[in-house]
């Protein structure tokens, strides 16, 4: 029993930490909300270039916008913290370009049944879609599709391949 008690307590602390950090990050999100605004104003301040953030390497968002794949844990559709900045960048871009549409392609690794994986891929795509809409992107700009395990990036039957295949692709 004690064997589990300690990890459980740790878990509780972590959860608590997460909750507080989430509250914090919510605040932070508020600040970041201001930042994209600043960025967007920045974008707006440089309209004369005519260059799109997706193609203009000098754009501060450019590097983040090149990141177009969100990877997932096995059988999970929760977006990991490390992709927050990427998703925020795409949200900013899409908000600034309301005419632009994006396709979110959800994928799964080959394990399990195809139809379940199709649903899992969709769930991942919808997780990203939800983040974008929360960050202000209009639902009409987003299209989701799931290919399940039908379009793997890597054909191997190992963890490294599966890790690459569990993903949502952001396609402009």
């Amino acid at each position, binding site marked *: 029993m004690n064997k589990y008690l300690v990890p459980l307590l740790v878990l509780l602390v972590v959860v608590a930490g997460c909750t507080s950090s989430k509250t914090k990050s919510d605040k932070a999100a508020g600040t970041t909300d201001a930042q994209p605004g600043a960025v967007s104003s920045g974008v707006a301040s440089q309209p004369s270039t005519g260059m799109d953030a997706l193609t203009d390497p000098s754009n501060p968002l450019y590097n983040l916008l090149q990141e177009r794949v969100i990877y997932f844990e096995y059988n999970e559709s929760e977006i990991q913290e490390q992709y927050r900045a990427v998703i925020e960048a795409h949200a900013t871009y899409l908000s600034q370009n309301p005419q632009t549409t994006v396709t979110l392609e959800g994928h799964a690794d080959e394990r399990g049944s195809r139809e379940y994986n199709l649903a899992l891929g*969709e769930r991942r795509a919808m997780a990203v879609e939800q983040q974008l809409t929360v960050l202000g992107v209009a639902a009409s700009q987003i299209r989701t599709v799931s290919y399940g395990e039908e379009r793997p990036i890597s054909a191997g039957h190992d963890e490294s391949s599966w890790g690459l295949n569990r993903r949502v692709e952001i396609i402009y």
Partner: protein
Amino acid sequence: MKRLLLLLLLMSHIAIAEDALNIIIDEGVEGALPIAVIPFGWNQDTLEPVDMALTITNDLARSGRFVPMKERDLPQRPNQFDQINFKDWRLLGMENLVIGNLVQTGVGTYEVEFRLVNTFNGRQLAGFRIPAPITQLRRTAHRISDIIFEKLTGVRGAFDTRIAYITVKEMGQNKKQYNLLIADADGFNPQVLLSSQEPLLSPAWSPDGKRIAYVSFESRNSAIWVQDILTGARTRVAGNKGINSAPAWSPDGTRLAMTLSKDGNPDIYIMHLATHTTQQLTFNRAIDTEPVWAVDGSKIAFTSDRGGSAQIYESSAIGGEARRLTFEGNYNARPRYSPDGKAMTMVSSRNDGRYRIAYLELSSGYSSILTNTNLDESPSFAPNGSMIIYATATRTGSELAAVSADGTVHQRLAMQGGEVREPAWGPFLSP
């Protein structure tokens, strides 16, 4: 009179002796039945159009229930009953013998005659003469296999049936070709029903074996199509936003159960094919997918992760509370009922990272793993319930395999065409 007396005496002796010893045989062995299929006689000098004996031999061997004698080991090659040297066969312990003849009766017309003989009592267990055009010769061989199978196992044979499956070919430049095919159960006579550059999946036979429903991504999203096998005519029956997948025919062929996420979450719906109207069966926020109808049409089983992991549930076909059926392992998905409705096969993982084919006995809830591979999928019962066909990952892709419902017999089915997946065993062709 004397003779009669002697006979009576003998009989009384026998009557007394009869009870002298009675040996109880309370166990037996599980194993394939020996059988010898003699190359059929052929009345022409030309090469025979179909090797009947070989086709039958392969059928019986593939079932796992028979171990046909190798052709080179045959002690004799009779084509007629009175040519059989019974003693030779008995000495070899070969109790079942199939002999026959292929006779060309006209241009493109043939007659196949065969006998199934028990060499120990010299009796004919079955014997038929079947006229057939050249195009039906192979099918005739499968029908003979069916008769033999039923005569010796008591179970209707499923050789004269077909399977549907998907193949994927690398076309270069990151392009692939997806094919939906049907073939005889032995893999011969493959016919491509549909080719696409976009994924095809989930082929499902209509109960009458005349149509196939499947999922195609040709419109850049999943959509459910129904295609007539003979004419090739196809109809898109579901192409909503989100997922349109996992079609499953009702036993009467009038409805399709399917998975739609048009309302934001994958749930089970039932579509009336005559009107294309749908009614929603499940309303859970979890993934509900892979529906399948019970044999009597009263229930629908499906995969759901409503309990935290993918497990199999069953609900009435008209909706209502779902009952969880699987409790072993962290993953159970894609159920298929056995033809007698007493069991189910599915993909199962037992916390070991392996995804294998399992067999679930519905009355007891007892389940067992049938395969020993790591990545298996799409199990499908033969219409006689004896075998389960499925796909299993190989180093280079995937191939078809079959396992007996009791897990004792394993077969690999070598098919042409690279990656082969999602087999679906069709219904009996003849009623």
